[in-house]
C-alpha cells in the first residue's frame, strides 16, 4: 500500500506519517501542496491519498477535483485531513468525491477509524 501525504506543514506530514506507520503502512511519500502532489500521483502508482485543504499553490480541494478528473487517478481513495470546518466546505469536498474527512485537531483513533472505513467500503465494492 503506497500512500501520498500532502500538507504544507512538515510537522503535520511527520505526524500523519508516524501514525500511518503505527497502523502498519510503511510505504509513504510526502508533498507540500497540490502542484507538487499531482505529478507524483500521475507517475507514482499510489494507492491512497491523504491531503490537507489550506495550502499555498494548489489547495487540497483543487487537488481532489484534479484527481477525480484524471482518467487514471479517478478511483484513488482520498482522505482529507484539514482544519477547515465549515459545513459548506465539507459538503463541497463530499460532492467533489472525497472518501473521508477529518477535522484537525484529530486523534490517532480517528485516523485509524476513517482509514479502516474507507478500505472496508472499497473491499465491499462501494
Amino acid at each position, binding site marked *: 500500500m503506497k500512500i501520498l501525504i500532502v500538507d504544507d506543514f512538515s*510537522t*503535520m506530514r511527520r505526524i500523519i506519517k*508516524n501514525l500511518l506507520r503505527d497502523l502498519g503502512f510503511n510505504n509513504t511519500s510526502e508533498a507540500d501542496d497540490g502542484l507538487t502532489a499531482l505529478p507524483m500521483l500521475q507517475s507514482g502508482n499510489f494507492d491512497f491519498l491523504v491531503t490537507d485543504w*489550506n495550502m499555498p499553490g494548489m489547495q487540497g*480541494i483543487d487537488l481532489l477535483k484534479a484527481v477525480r478528473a484524471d482518467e487514471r487517478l479517478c478511483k484513488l481513495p482520498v482522505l482529507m485531513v484539514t*482544519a477547515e470546518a465549515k459545513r*459548506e466546505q465539507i459538503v463541497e469536498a463530499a460532492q467533489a468525491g472525497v472518501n473521508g474527512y477529518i*477535522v484537525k485537531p*484529530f486523534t490517532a483513533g480517528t485516523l485509524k477509524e476513517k482509514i479502516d472505513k474507507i478500505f472496508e467500503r472499497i473491499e465491499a465494492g462501494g
Partner: protein
Amino acid sequence: MSEALVGSEQCLEFARSLVAHLEAGDEQGAQESLEALSAIRESQLFQELGKLTRELHNTLANFQIDTKITTLAETDIPDAKERLNYVITMTEQAADKTLGAVEELQPLSDELQTRMAKLHADWGRFRSRDMAVEEFRELSRELDQFFDWMGETMPQFNSKLTDIMMAQDFQDLTGQIIRRVITLVQDVESGLVDLIRISGQKLKAQPEKKEVNPIEATGPSIEGIDQGNIVKGQDEVDDLLSSLGF
C-alpha cells in the same frame, strides 16, 4: 501667455494710468484705475481658492472609496487579537500535553532501569554458576513478574509517545493562524501608507462589505470569532457526511 503674466501686465497698465491721472489732478480717473487694480487682485484670489477647493474635494472623494482602514480597525484587528490569543492557548496546551506525558514516562523508565539492573546481575551470577537452587527459583519468579510488568507497561509507553507526537499538531494549526495575521499586518501597513498620503483630512468612511466565499480556506476556526456554519468536531463531520449518503 500665462494668466499671471497677463495679470501683471494689466496691473502695470492700470498703475501707470493711476500715476498719470494723479499727476493730471484727475481724481475721478485715479479712483477708477485704483478700482480696476483691486478687481484684478480679487479675481486671482478667487481662482486660487477655487483650485484649492477642487483639490480638497478630489482628495476626500478618493479616500471614501478606499475604506479598508475602517474595516481593519473595527473588525480585522480585534479578530486578529482573538486569533493570536488562541495561538497562545494552543501552544500552552501542546506544551502541557508533552510535559505531562514525559512526566508520566520518566518513573516508568526509571523502574525499568532498576529492575533490569537487578535481573542482569542475578542472571550473571546464574551464568557463572554462582547461584543456589532456591535463589534460582526466586530469579525465575522475578523474571515472570518482569515480563508481566513489561507486557502491561509497554502499551502505556507507546500511547504516551503517540500523545507527545500528536501534541505537535499545534505547529500546523498555529502556523495557519499566524500566516493569516501576517496578511492582516500587511493590509494595515498599506492602509497606513494611504492614510499618511492623505493626512490631515477628517474622514467618515463606511465599513466595506466583504464578499464571503463559503468554501474559501480560512484555517482553523475559533469559537467566538468565526461566524457561520462551522462543525463542532469530528462527530458533526461524520453526521453531515452520513446525511449526504456516506
